[in-house]
C-alpha cells in the first residue's frame, strides 16, 4: 500500500518524531510523559527500520524482526520504569522529575 512513497518521506517523519521525543524528554516535567517521549523515540526508530527494510532491502526481514523486538523490549522497559515511578510516588507524593535532585554535585 506504500508503493511510490519515496523513502525520504519516512525518514523525515521518523526524524521529526525522534526530535519531538527528545524535546519532550528534555522539557516535560512529568515522569510519565517523559516515558511517553521515550516511546516516541523508539517508534521513530521502528519506522526507520520498517521503511528501510520495505523499500531498500525487501529481500530480508531483519528490519521487521528488529522492530518487533524493539516493541517488546520497550514494553519491558516501560513496565520497569513505571514500577519505579510508582515506588517514587510512594516516597514523595508527586512524580515531578525536578524533585529527583537529592543527589547532586
Amino acid at each position, binding site marked *: 500500500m506504500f508503493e511510490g512513497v519515496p523513502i525520504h518521506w519516512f525518514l523525515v517523519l*521518523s526524524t521529526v518524531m*525522534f526530535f519531538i*521525543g527528545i524535546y519532550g*524528554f528534555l522539557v516535560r516535567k512529568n*515522569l510519565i510523559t*517523559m*516515558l511517553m517521549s*521515550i516511546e516516541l*523515540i*523508539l517508534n*521513530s*526508530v521502528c519506522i*526507520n*527500520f520498517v521503511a*528501510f*527494510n520495505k523499500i*531498500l*532491502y525487501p529481500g*530480508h526481514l*531483519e*528490519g521487521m*524482526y*528488529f522492530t518487533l*523486538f*524493539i516493541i517488546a*523490549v520497550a514494553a*519491558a*522497559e516501560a513496565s*520497569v*520504569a513505571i*514500577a*519505579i*515511578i510508582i*515506588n*517514587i510516588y510512594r*516516597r*514523595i507524593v508527586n512524580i515531578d*522529575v525536578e524533585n*529527583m535532585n*537529592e*543527589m*547532586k*554535585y
Partner: protein
Amino acid sequence: MLIMRHELLLIAITVILLLVEIFLPAGKKERIITPAILLMLAVLILGFIPGPTGSLFGGMYQTTNLILMLKNILNIGAFIVMVQSVDWLRKPENNEKISEYYILLLSTLVGMQYMISSGDFLMFYLGLELATIPLAALAAFERFKEKSAEAGVKFIFSSALSSGILLYGLSMIYGTTGTLYFAEVGPAFTGTPLQVLGFIFFFAGMAFKISLVPFHLWTADVYEGAPINITSYLSVVSKGAAAFILTILLFTVFSKIALMWSNVLYIVIVLTITMGNLFAIRQQNLKRFLAFSSIAQAGFILLGIIGQSQYGMATVIYFVLVYIFSNLGAFGVVSIVSNRTGFESIKDYDGFYRTNPRLAMVMMLSLFSLAGIPPVAGFFGKFFLFAAAANHGLYILVLIAIINTIISLYYYLLVIKAMFLNRSDRPIQRIKSDFYTNLGLILCLVGIFAIGIVSAIFETINGLSFGLY
C-alpha cells in the same frame, strides 16, 4: 549447545533459584545464599573448561576463545559481587528479597554475555537491554530509601534515552548497509556521512554504558543512590562488558573508519579523564568518590582501544581485569563499613587503620592499585595502557593521562590520609568480618597482587586478542 554453555549455565541456575525461591518458607530465605554462591562458583569453574567455539543462529550468536575468556572475566566479577553482597543481604529489610536479588543479578550477567558474544546488532541490542533493565530494578532495590528510588529513576530513564539514541544510530547503519550482521556490516561500512552519524549515535549509547564524558552524568547519582554492591557491580562488570563489546566492534565492524573513531576517542578520553578527576577531588561520600574515580578509569581504558593494536586490546582486557579486583576491593570495604555502621563519608574514616587495620590495608592496596602504584597490579595495567597509546605515537595524550594520574593519586591519598594519618576521638569501632566478607576481600587481594606479578595472565590475554594491524 555447548557453544553457548556460559549463558545456558547461568540461565539454568537462575531457573533453579526461582524454583527454590518458590518453595522456601518466608523468613528462611537466607538459606538460599550458600547454594546460590556455590552454583555460581560451579559456573565460574565450568566456564574455564575449554570447549567448542563457533557461531549459532546463522551467525547471530558467535563465540571465540577470546569471548569465552571475556565471559569468564565477567563471571569472576559477578561472583565476587555475589559474595560481597551477602553481608548486605542478611540485613532484615533485605531478607525477603535475597533470591530476587540474585536472580536479577544473574539475568543481567546473562544479558552481558549475550551482548559480548553477539554476532549481529539485534542480538547485541537484546543483550544490552537484558543487561540494563534488571539493573534499573536493582538500583531501586532498597524500596524504602528515597535515594535508591531516585537512582532507579535516573538510571532507567537515561538508559532508555541512550538506548533510543543507540537504536536510532543502528537504524541508520542498517539503512546504509542493508544488514545487521557484524560480518557483513564491516565491509560495507565505508564512512558515508550517514554512517558516521549512525556511528556517533551508536557510540553515544555505548559511551553511556561505559560512562564517558559527556554521557556520564547519570553515573555519580546512580552509584550513590544504588545499594553499594549494585554500585560495584555497575562500576566493574557492566562497565567491563560494555568496554569489551565496544572494543570488539570498533576493531571489527568499524575498522574501516578507525582514523575517525580514534579521533572521537581522543577528545572523549581527554574530557573523561580530566572531568572525572576534577569531580572526584571534591567528593566526600565514598560511593560518589569511587563513582567519579571509575569515570576517570573508564577514560584510561579507552587509551588501550585508541592504540588500535592487538596489544592495545590485550591491555584493555587486562586493565578491566585488574580494575575489577581493585575496585571490588575498595567497594568491598566501603560496603561492609556502611552495612555495619552506616558511615559512607571520607571524614568518618578518620583513624580507621587504628581500629580496623586489616580492612584499612585492603582499602589502601586497592586504592594504590587504582592509582597505579607498584607493586600492585594497577601499576602494570596503567603502564601497559600508556604503552599501548604511546605505541601509536600519541605521546601528548599519554602525557595528559599521566598528569591526570597524579591528580587521581592526590584524591586516593586523601582517603588513605583519613584512614592512616588522621586521628579521631570516636573512630569506627572494630568490625567483626564474617566468612563471606573475608572471602571477598581475600579474593580481591590475591587478584591485586597476582595479576601484576604473574606475567602469564597478560601473555594469555595478549595471545587471544587481535588488533587492527
